[in-house]
């Protein structure tokens, strides 16, 4: 009659500390992976949203710049309001070619959009415009 077999039987009835710790560790790492993946997806979505908004605002700034050059203002700036508060835009136009007597209404325009974090996005393009100083007199 020994005590040993009885003790072994009692020990088999529950988990050891190591077993429980291992289970918790596995569960914890699985949860961590799940949550970090979710967080990553959220961040990706936000980044994508921001870049789409930026490209749209840049296109709007291009329209403003084109119009500014049309009415003879070669530099200009402005800011967006409401849901796009914090975004600012500016542009600079430089005449290309021609002489002072016969200027060619051809401009290189550089548009810059600054996001609320202070990061700049720049787009450069060319505009051919007869500006307001050189309006066409029609009717003959």
């Amino acid at each position, binding site marked *: 009659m020994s005590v040993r077999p009885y003790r072994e039987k009692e020990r088999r009835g529950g988990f050891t500390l190591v077993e429980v710790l291992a289970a918790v560790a596995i569960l914890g790492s699985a949860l961590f992976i799940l949550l970090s993946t979710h967080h990553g997806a959220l961040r990706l979505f936000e980044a994508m949203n921001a870049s789409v908004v930026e490209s749209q605002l840049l296109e*709007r700034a291009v329209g403003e710049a084109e*119009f500014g050059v049309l009415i003879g203002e070669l530099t200009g700036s402005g800011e967006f309001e409401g849901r796009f508060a914090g975004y600012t835009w500016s542009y600079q136009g430089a005449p290309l070619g021609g002489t002072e007597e016969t200027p060619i209404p051809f401009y290189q325009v550089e548009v810059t959009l600054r996001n609320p974090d202070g990061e700049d996005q720049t787009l450069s393009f060319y505009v051919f415009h*007869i500006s307001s100083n050189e309006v066409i007199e029609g009717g003959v």
Partner: protein
Amino acid sequence: MRRLAQQRNSGFTMIEMMVAMAVLVILVGALYTCFVSVVNTAEIARSTTEAMRIQRYLREHFINHLSAIHAQVRGEYALIGEDESGAYGPADSLTFVTSLPTSGARSLPGIVKQVEYLIDDPSFSEESGFQTFGADETEEKPSVTLFITERPLVLGEDGDEEFFEADEEAEGLWQREIPIRSLNFEYYDGTAEDWVEDWNSDELGFLPWAIKVSINLAKTEEQLRVDLADGVGTEEEPDVGFTIVLPTGAGVISPDFIDPNHRRQTETVDGGSNIFEDES
């Protein structure tokens, strides 16, 4: 002794069960929160993508069609923009003739089309003649629809400036409905050097130099509540806004629809005579 031990092993104690349940509840709670968050994100992403698609479509439609505007037309086919207001803000309309081919059906030779942007606002009461407003900002209101209609036109047989509407059954009337909240057009008057709210190129005799388009897209009540919480007014900043310089209108102050191309033609081909001289 042995019997006692067997009895203890045959089930869990109350404490064990409670601890297990508590752990389970916490885990399920975390997972459920995570799942709900994923579903919400997916829904936001879906509606954002849809809004983006509509924005891009409207933008391209306006820019392409206004850039290709056909200037040498009068009467009902002139560029006519009317300033109107709807339940949620401006509900302007605009119609003009453009030389872009009809959407969907690729170019048929010699055919231009009339494009019309028209707002259908069901909250506008025909009988009383005024808008019906909801008392609460977030109250459910009927949606406003933007109708984009493209009407094919063919030149009159005797070659005059008259246009005739093509047979709608044969040529097809292209129409698209887009739910929006408000639409505003502004026109730059080069002679007055100012933006104006409406335009009639038949009366004025020339096109605006540029057109500014401001659109607020249709929103769900949830989005409106979010906007309200963020302190964003629906009228303050349009969802879609852009300025289009009209290539055939820019820099022209003449009442005779002279655009740069025709000026070139006047000076080089016609030897000084104007192609519109016969009319004036």
